[in-house]
């Protein structure tokens, strides 16, 4: 029977799987497949899997539970193997590689930070700073502007927005860099100007969190910092 794979850990991990439900409508119980020093956490694969909140949430809950007690290699959502033997065989064949990764990630967690800035506040600031932009804006309001003025103003402002947001993003990342072992920056989405993951070790955890909190407060109103973690090291595998 096909199995869904959640995570790989060392087999001496406490593996408290009680009360957790597997993905899919049947919510199959979780079990482990062991080979050598390693262990894979699996459940029966559901007939149908969809990237819905329920199943994504269950996948994630398994990782969080395992992370709470030790080191975990989280699989990407949605992977299945034809049967347990295939899982076992994979753990045997690639055991050294998995064990190395687990050792590298020992005592580390991921934090993902997203941040946005109130757009109105940003635009205000740009118009306050740039006489040229303000002049174009005034012309448009007064109805005395040439037909292409809106596009010119918009382009000027868009470039400013990008420059300022990139500067803010690198400022935040540099502030937190001393407390992270690795950094993985992704393109921000929506109105965010920052989307970055940090791999943080036990020893640095407190300083990282304190710095992030302090940074968020220092940026002040109009900024929203969304920190998620501790997470299993999804981005650092």
């Amino acid at each position: 029977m096909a199995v869904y794979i959640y995570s790989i850990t060392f087999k001496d991990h406490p593996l408290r799987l009680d009360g957790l439900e597997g993905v899919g409508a049947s919510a199959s119980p979780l079990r482990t497949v062991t080979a050598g020093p390693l262990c894979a956490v699996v459940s029966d694969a559901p007939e149908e899997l969809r990237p819905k909140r329920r199943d994504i949430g269950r996948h994630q809950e398994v990782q969080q539970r395992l992370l709470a007690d030790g080191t975990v290699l989280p699989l990407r959502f949605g992977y299945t193997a034809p049967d347990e033997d295939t899982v076992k065989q994979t753990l045997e064949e690639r055991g050294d590689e998995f064990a190395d990764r687990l050792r590298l990630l020992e005592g580390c967690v991921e934090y993902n930070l997203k941040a946005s800035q109130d757009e109105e506040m940003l635009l205000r600031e740009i118009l306050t700073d740039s006489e040229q932009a303000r002049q174009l804006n005034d012309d448009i309001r007064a109805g005395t502007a040439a037909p292409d003025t809106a596009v010119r103003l918009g382009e000027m402002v868009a470039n400013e927005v990008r420059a300022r947001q990139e500067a803010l993003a690198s400022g935040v990342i540099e502030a937190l860099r001393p407390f992270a072992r690795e950094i993985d920056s992704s393109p921000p989405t929506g109105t965010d100007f920052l989307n970055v993951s940090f791999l943080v070790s036990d020893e640095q955890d407190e300083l990282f969190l304190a710095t992030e909190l302090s940074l968020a407060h220092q940026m002040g109103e109009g900024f929203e910092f969304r920190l998620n973690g501790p997470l299993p090291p999804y981005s650092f595998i």
Partner: protein
Amino acid sequence: MTMVPQSSGNLARSGGSGTLYDVLELILDRGLVIDVFIRVSLVGIEILKIDIRIVVASVDTYLRFAEACNRLDLESGNKAPSKLTDIVGDTLESGAKGKSKGALSGAAEAVTDTIRGVTGKGDDEDEPEEETTERRRRPAKRSSRRERSTSRAEE
């Protein structure tokens, strides 16, 4: 933001904002991939990808920004710009050349202050003026983030 409600205990430290939603891309696009395993076909996964960044170079974007600027009431709302100036410093100049550098070094200054605060070097009297002002403005440090996102949502 339809996937927001998720009451996971230690997952989200930031108050109120989406937790599972904010880590979706990690769960779906990161993590270990083992090539002998098969990924089930994920119908609907592309929906999550359409949330592209707003700042792209196009006439539509330019016009949207221009309209947003036209709508701004520059006279009444002058609290916001002065606050941003606190953060990025006074070094900002309106020339395009000096801009990003100014903002960046301003951010770096903010960073230095932050680290100083965290490592606990300075007691209250050593803290820069700016820091004191910030504190007065927001007495409840812990909860201010939640307040911010709540008020944003209500707007």
